[in-house]
């Protein structure tokens, strides 16, 4: 069976490996150069900060495409697994051999799922190593920036696995490759939007945010924190509103329009601001939480695919 999996899926696996290798080489060369350039610069110096910032922005534009990468695992490795067998009629060949359809499906899911997860983990590890060359800037950005959080660490592997399993499941139901690819992509995008979008604030459920009450305009949050909201407190400590403009009106600050920054006025009048945020040290906790969620969904959907393989071309209705 292992030979068959390799023989049928070697092309996308090889292409993925080559692309990962190329991407890793770019990161390696760039990262080693950063280390060279920063040697001898004093920690915390403006010169070093400016250099690291420049080094980060060298590649940042490309990172905006990172969230699309796991989707490809669903499209090109996941969707064809069952859809193409149905489409070409080879299902009748594959599932009438001594190897049972269930074992066939389990083997394909396990082997390809492992390969896909390892690819995602490799990408995450390479990205983490590169971010490591940027010191605190890297630590902050890998947490605060959406494409870097999903593309780095362990959650990268989980996104790849999730996308792959969605592709396989879509192929099981639709039995045609191209529609299965479309549905796999849609499922991935929906999951991504639900988890990332500020409308749902899904990631806010991963942990309780840190709350700091500040009485001056200076930002109390460490660099690279992810904001979880803020509230104005009146001089008596009661929560008033998160929006500054009505609070300023009530406090009697001179009206300068809704866009004006009233915080100096409010702070002088005794108002304080409670900010909630996740510091960058929460990175691994968020990583493992999201990994657990995505892997759990992937395993459940994968289980359904295996269950449906009892009678591969049509069960009792």
């Amino acid at each position: 069976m292992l030979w068959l999996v390799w023989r049928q899926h070697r092309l996308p696996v090889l292409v993925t490996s080559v692309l990962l290798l190329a991407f890793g080489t770019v990161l390696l060369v760039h990262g080693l150069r950063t280390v060279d350039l920063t040697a001898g610069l004093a920690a915390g110096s403006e010169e070093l900060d400016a250099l690291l910032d420049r080094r980060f922005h060298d590649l940042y534009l490309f990172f905006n495409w990172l969230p699309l990468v796991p989707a490809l695992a669903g499209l090109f490795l996941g969707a064809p697994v069952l859809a193409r067998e149905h489409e070409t009629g080879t299902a009748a060949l594959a599932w009438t051999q001594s190897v049972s359809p269930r074992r066939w499906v389990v083997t394909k899911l396990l082997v390809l799922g492992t390969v896909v997860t390892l690819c995602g983990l490799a990408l995450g590890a390479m990205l983490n190593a590169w971010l490591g060359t940027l010191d605190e800037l890297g630590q902050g950005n890998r947490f605060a920036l959406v494409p870097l959080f999903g593309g780095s660490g362990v959650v990268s592997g989980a996104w790849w696995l999730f996308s792959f399993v969605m592709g396989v499941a879509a192929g099981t139901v639709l039995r045609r490759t191209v529609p299965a690819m479309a549905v796999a992509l849609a499922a991935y995008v929906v999951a991504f939007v639900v988890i990332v979008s500020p409308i749902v604030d899904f990631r806010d459920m991963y942990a309780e945010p840190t709350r700091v009450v500040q009485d001056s305009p200076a930002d109390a949050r460490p660099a690279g924190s992810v904001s979880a909201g803020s509230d104005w407190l009146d001089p008596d400590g009661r929560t008033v509103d998160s929006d500054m403009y009505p609070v300023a009106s009530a406090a009697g600050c001179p009206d300068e329009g809704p866009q004006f920054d009233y915080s100096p006025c409010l702070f002088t009048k005794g108002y304080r601001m409670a900010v909630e945020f996740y510091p960058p040290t929460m990175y691994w906790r968020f990583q493992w939480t999201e990994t657990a969620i995505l892997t759990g969904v992937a395993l459940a959907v994968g289980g359904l695919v295996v269950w449906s393989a009892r009678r591969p071309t049509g069960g009792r209705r």
Partner: protein
Amino acid sequence: MTETVLEATGLGKRYRRRWALRDCSLAVPAGRVVALVGPNGAGKTTLLHLAAGLLAPTAGTVRVLGSPAGHERGRVAFLAQDKPLYETFTVADMLRFGRRMNPVWDDGFARARLAGLDIPLDHRTGRLSGGQQAQVALTVALAKRPDLLLLDEPMANLDPLARHEVMRDLMAVVADTGLTVLLSSHVVSDLENTCDWLVVVNRGRVQVSGDIEDLLGAHHLLSGPAELAGAVASRLAVVEDDRTDRQATLLVRATDGLPALDPRWHVRPVALEELVLSYLRQPESAALPRLVMAGAAPTDPVPFP
């Protein structure tokens, strides 16, 4: 050989609202070459897919080699209608596929067979001719050394020469190994000289199942004056009754031999194709052996109304 290789009891398969196969009961003894005939869409493919374990029955059961279909996977080979192969695989890859997917695999047989057919092992299957693809697919099916070979329209899309070769090769293997073959076709002449058991499927129902020699021996074509037809119909099972004002042609079934008839009847034996066509034209007629099976009422021949 009295072992029953394929046994269906009240077997039915429904796709949404439509029954593709209904109330199908039959038993096929081992060592037979079974012709499964019927018009397009009659339920032949569904029956084969149920026997191969690719479909689950909606009603009834189907047992293959003594176990529910889909259990004796290594002993059953199935060749689907479009003779699927992995197009990007070379012929050698297809053999490797068979070897990896089956604990019992006769690689020497497969290679010798393909060499005899001049099919190169290093060609991709997608670039072979239709006849060669059919031969590769058949080789993969046969090299499993199955006890039951299910072939869905093995002759479809083949030119007459390739048909002849495929059939001849198949019969050689049957003679060597004694495997049971169940092959479907809607062209009866393809099967005339090769099969020894006939199953007729029509409109999702099994109409005829039996030994071809017995069936041909039991059926007679009578032609004679129309006014005598009524008397015959009251004594014999009439499959098809074709009357003009004066002349009647009856296909009758007389399992226990033809009784004495009015001498004005002209009696002649029936050919296989005539027999099949008569049944297909008369879906209400049926010739089924009495099957005594657990849970199933014996199926009587249904008399012509």
